[in-house]
C-alpha cells in the first residue's frame, strides 16, 4: 500500500493538488501506469519525511490538466507521461511537444 494514498476524480484533481500545496508539500514525482485500457496517474508529494500520494484514473482520449502553475518542476514529469504513454497534458509551462524523449517508437509504454 502506498503512503498517504488518496484516490481522486480527474475533475477534482487540481483542487486536491492545490490543497496539498497549501499544506506545504512539494512535488516528488508523477508517473503513469497502464491498467487495461486506462491509465493511473500517481502524484507523489513530500514534506520533510512525510509522503502523500494522489492517484487519478484517465481513460483513453481524456486530457489531464497540467500542475505546472502550482509546481513549476512538474513539466519534466508531464512531458514524460505524454511521450511514453501518449497521455495528453494541457497547459504545461514548458511543453516539449513530444520531443523530450527521442524514442524510435512513438509512445512506447502505451
Amino acid at each position, binding site marked *: 500500500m502506498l503512503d498517504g494514498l488518496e484516490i481522486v476524480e480527474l475533475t477534482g484533481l487540481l483542487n486536491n493538488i492545490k490543497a496539498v500545496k497549501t499544506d506545504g508539500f512539494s512535488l516528488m*514525482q508523477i508517473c503513469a501506469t497502464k491498467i487495461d485500457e486506462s491509465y493511473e496517474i500517481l502524484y507523489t508529494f*513530500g514534506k520533510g519525511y512525510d509522503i502523500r500520494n494522489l492517484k487519478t484514473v484517465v481513460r483513453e482520449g481524456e486530457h489531464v490538466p497540467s500542475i505546472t502553475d502550482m509546481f513549476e518542476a512538474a513539466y519534466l514529469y508531464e512531458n514524460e507521461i505524454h511521450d511514453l504513454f501518449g497521455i495528453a497534458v494541457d497547459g504545461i509551462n514548458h511543453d516539449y511537444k513530444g520531443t523530450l524523449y527521442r524514442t524510435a517508437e512513438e509512445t*512506447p509504454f502505451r
Partner: protein
Amino acid sequence: MAAKRSVIPFGPQHPVLPEPIHIDLVTEDEKVVEAIPSIGFVHRGLEQLVTKKDFGEMVYVAERICGICSFGHGYGYVKTIEHIMGIEPTDRARYIRTMLFELSRMHSHILWLGLMADAFGFESLFMETWKIREKILDMLEAATGGRVIFSIMRIGGLRKDVPDDVMKGFLPELDKVVEGIKACEAAFLSDPAVLGRLKGVGYISKEDAIALGCEGPFLRASGVEHDNRMRGYAAYGDMDFKIITSDEGDSYGRCYVRIHEIYESASIVRQCIEKMPQEGIYVPIKGFPNGEHMTVIEQPRGGACYYVHASGKKFIERMRVRTPTFANIPALAKTLQGCDVADVPILVVTIDPCISCTER
C-alpha cells in the same frame, strides 16, 4: 540599448559531459538569461522490461540502470518488492547491504571529485582522487566479485555472504581512503584558483531548492537538512551519522557537502563491520508480489523513488524509477540563469548529473 539575445547550444556532446544532455543557453552578451534543458538522447525504456522479465530477474536489470549507482538501484527495487511481499531480510543482510551502499556512495562522490578537478583543469588532483577511488573499488570487488555491477542483491537477502575477515580487512583501507581525501580537501576547499571557479557560482536559495524539488547534495548545499537515510531503511536506523549541509548554496557548498559525506560514509561502513550480526543472509520467498508500493532511498546523487505495481503474477505491471538527476534538472536550469557562459560547464558538473540514471 538592450543586449542582443543569442542561443548557444550546450551539449549533447561536450568535454565535461560523459553522457548526452543538451541545454539551450539563451544569452545576453556573456550572461545566461535562460536555460532550456533537453534530455532523451539515449532513453532505454528499462522500466518497460518489467512486463517481460520475471520479477526476480528484474533485479539484474535494475542494477544496470547505472554503473555508478548500480547497487542502490538494485536495492531500491528489491526493497520495494520485499515490502509488497512482506519479507523482512535478516540483520546480517541489512548490515551488508548498508555497508555496500555506503562504499558505493564513497566511490560515486570520489568519482565526482575527480570529474570536478578535471572540469576546472586540475589534472593532478583528478588523478589523485581517482587513485584513491580504486581502493574502494578493490573493496567492492573483494566483497562482491564485481567492480561496477555487483549482482549480489536478491529478493529476500543476498546471493552470497561476505566473510568477516574480508570485511575486517576493509578497516585499514578505509583509513587510507579518508587520509587521502583529507589531503585533497585542502585543494578543493581552500585553493584560491579553485575557489575562484566555485565560490558564488550557481547559487540557489533554500526556498527555490525546496520548491524546485532538488535532491541530495544539491539540496543540502542550500542548507536543507534532508537525507532519506534518516528514514531508517536497511541498517541506517542502527547507525550513528549526521546530515552534512552547507549554507553557501553555490558550487563550493556542493563540493563541501560531498567531501564531508565521504567521511560520514566511511564512519557508517566502519560501524557496519564492527556491529555485523552473525545470522544468515537470505530469507526464502514464496509466491508472487501483489500490490503497490513506493520506496524512497538516498542514492549518492539524492533521493530516488522506486514504485512497483504488481498483481500477483510472475511479471510486474509497472516499475518506475524517479532518479535524483531527473529531479535536479529544473533546479539546474534555474541556477544557470544569470551565470557567465564560461561557468556553465562547471555548474553542470556540480549537480553530479547521471544521464544513464535519467535515461533509464
